[in-house]
């Protein structure tokens, strides 16, 4: 029973890890929370659902299409908000507010379109379970874990082995110094938004498959935030660990105490972390950019 829950917790946690990593990528460059990440989660869930339903394509294809879509949407958000604000010399604070509004806006639009209904996929995808020993593992949990491992592997290849990744890491340290190297900072930031959007999209789609598709699914972005704090803001490895930990905590609390109380305990956990280890569990202290 406990093992069962642990498996469940890890697979949910792996989703939070993906979200947290995407969130951190933008945070590292701008030094600010990007709440439009939540909008991309919701768009990812709805788009793959719509495509699967109305174009009657297989769910995996729908998910892939939706990932491309959220990546582009995220880049678009950068283009029409952050880019304009930066050109005018307005700092990231304005983008913080703009991103919150984008999140609220997309949620409102989805509420309007879906009329607040909760829907599930027309065709079963990764349904059922398989057994290892006496463990029953839902296919969706295994799928989520596997997909997030693949995503993280691709991401770390991009970050550590490509020119783009080098530029992103350089710009995360200092935008000014990166510009002096001849890096096109607008393009880099847009690229980061694209990557972070794809990660939100894949997570949104999979969470939609596991639970259901509903307009407030974007609220999972808060889990990403908590994961980042637990792991240490600005630390990608920490974000992954934080995501797993939050996922486990949430699942175990829901299973053994009460699912309704688990957010309150998550908050308590966060307060304890802030008190004891403000730099996060994985811990290097980062610079304040706000």
């Amino acid at each position, binding site marked *: 029973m406990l093992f069962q829950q642990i498996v469940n917790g890890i697979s949910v946690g792996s989703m939070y890890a993906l979200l947290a990593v995407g969130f951190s990528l933008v945070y590292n460059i701008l030094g600010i929370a990007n709440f439009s990440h939540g909008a991309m989660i919701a768009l990812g869930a709805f788009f793959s659902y719509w495509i699967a339903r109305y174009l009657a394509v297989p769910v995996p294809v729908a998910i892939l299409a939706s990932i491309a879509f959220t990546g582009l949407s995220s880049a678009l958000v950068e283009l029409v908000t952050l880019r304009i604000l930066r050109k005018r010399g*307005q700092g990231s604070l304005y983008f913080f507010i703009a991103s*919150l509004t984008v999140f609220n806006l997309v949620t*409102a639009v989805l509420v309007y379109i879906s009329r607040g209904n909760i829907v599930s996929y027309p065709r079963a995808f990764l349904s059922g379970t398989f057994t290892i020993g006496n463990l029953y593992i839902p296919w969706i949990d295994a799928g989520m874990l596997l997909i997030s491992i693949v995503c993280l592997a691709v991401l770390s290849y991009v970050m550590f082995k490509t020119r783009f990744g080098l530029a992103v890491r350089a710009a995360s340290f200092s935008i000014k110094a990166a510009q002096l190297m001849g890096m096109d900072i607008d393009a880099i930031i847009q690229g980061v938004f694209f990557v972070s959007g794809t990660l939100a999209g894949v997570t949104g789609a999979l969470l939609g498959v596991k639970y259901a598709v509903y307009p407030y699914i974007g609220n999972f972005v*808060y889990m990403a935030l908590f994961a980042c*704090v637990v792991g240490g803001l600005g630390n990608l490895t920490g974000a992954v660990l934080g995501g797993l930990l939050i996922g486990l905590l949430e699942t175990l609390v829901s299973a053994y105490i009460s699912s309704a109380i688990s957010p309150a305990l998550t908050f308590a956990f*966060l307060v304890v972390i802030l008190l004891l280890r403000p730099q996060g569990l994985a811990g290097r202290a980062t610079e304040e950019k706000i």
Partner: protein
Amino acid sequence: MSFLEGVLILTGIVAIVAQGVYVLTGLTGLFSLGQASFMAVGAYSAGIANLRFGLGFIPSLCVGVVAALLASFVVGAPSLKLKKTYFSLATIAFGYGVESVLNVSTWTGGSIGLIGVANITRVWHVAIALGLVLWVVRNFKLSRYGRACVSVRTDETAAQVYGVNAFATKQMAFSLAAALAGLGGGLYAFYLGYLSPDMFGIPVSSEYLVMVFFGGLGSQTGAFAASVLLTALMEMLRTAAEWRVILYCLIILITLMFRPTGLFGSWELSFGRRRNGSAPPDSPGALAGGARK
């Protein structure tokens, strides 16, 4: 109670909470996504005091304000000593926690909510409260505490060098904002007569934050005008219930993009005196390379 009365009461309550957000964000430069949760603490405490302990209107309101104040210390103590980002995150987590407690506790009526609070709040109650709040916040802004808040916003390290206790200053601003949210919440409880957890989620908090930005971060007048304008707009659009949030967000986004200082910038309606600072709490170079081509 007429429709107009209802709109006036609601507008007044929103304006009271927004004044708190002005102190916290406009003056001190802290971003909270937990103001609606402090409202919830105030509203539920006042409601429970009335419903379960039979306290009167004013005593119950006081209970609400005190409860919100206490909560502000619980959230502030661990997070205000850290970077501002952590504070924002702690307020989000707080919002999350409050909502979940409200949803499970039988004391608060769970997800159904608290039903049967007396309908007492009238327009004149809110008008008096709002007048008082505007006066207090104005004086706070002009006092040395207000100046301490501004110095913490501009440059925390420098402020400390000049002898400002940054932590205490932030906690003070945060507690004042929480108390105002608690007051607004209490009035809200006695206006509606029932409360449910989803009235006070993080999205509501974010609306308050955005509202103050909309009015102009540097301006108390702006915070007031924005809360009146936007609440009235929302109430007028009540018939187009589904569209209004979308419209609301669009208006704010467009304003933010094309008039980023907000409606009032840092202009202040202040007894013939014009105060015009370069207000946005955006330290130069906050986004290293901000204005580059």
